[in-house]
């Protein structure tokens, strides 16, 4: 199939709790270009206004499961950035 021109792919990021407040959004779209894994996602977020408080060791979930820094990330994944947990 020939490639159809379309909008450039994005990674959709869900934000929660303190991180959502810091970045002023509960959902963000980052250009997928240059994002290969969880580490890349965190680097990109940390560069945003308010993002400096997101540590490099922050928990990230990919498709509802905690993912390691080098776990791959693609536009079809559900990616969530999780502040330190406080349930219970």
């Amino acid at each position, binding site marked *: 199939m020939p490639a159809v021109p379309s909008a450039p792919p994005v990674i959709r990021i*869900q934000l*929660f*709790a*303190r991180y959502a*407040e810091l970045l002023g959004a509960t959902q963000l779209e980052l250009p997928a270009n240059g994002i290969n894994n969880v580490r890349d996602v965190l680097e990109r977020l940390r560069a945003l206004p308010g993002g400096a408080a997101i540590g490099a060791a922050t*928990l990230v*979930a990919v498709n*509802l*499961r*905690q993912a390691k820094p080098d776990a791959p990330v693609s536009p079809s994944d559900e990616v*969530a950035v*999780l*502040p*330190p*947990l*406080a*349930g*219970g």
Partner: protein
Amino acid sequence: MAYLSQRPLELNELLRAVAAPERGGVSSFVGLVRDHHGGRPVRGLAYSAYEPMAEAVCGEIIAEAESRWPVRVALQHRLGELTIGEVAVAIAVAGNHRDEAFAACRYVIEELKRRVPIWKRETYADGTVEWVEEGRAKSEERSGSSVS
């Protein structure tokens, strides 16, 4: 059963869910909203969650406990606004013997705290609001101008 609830929790409902004629021991745990945290008086708090993941992880933890011990587990965590003394989390574990029931109940609350994506925002008596992170409170906004 959904593990997250916007409505007040009732331990008795969880006890009924796990009780069975062959199970003689039920260990349960209830976490209540305390009136203080880190020495500061608390007025109330709000729990929020990454809900689909929280539901999935609660299910995983229960499955782990039920495969490791011969027990039945019920678990609910409250979301939304809570006042002092309200139930934040309730766990009931029924087993043939109390050893298993206690061990599995303890496992479930520890893993829940460690792995379930839930967050707590406390409101203090002075109007300050903070996100609580693993026992610490991270200052988010301060009301008024008198910051000591």
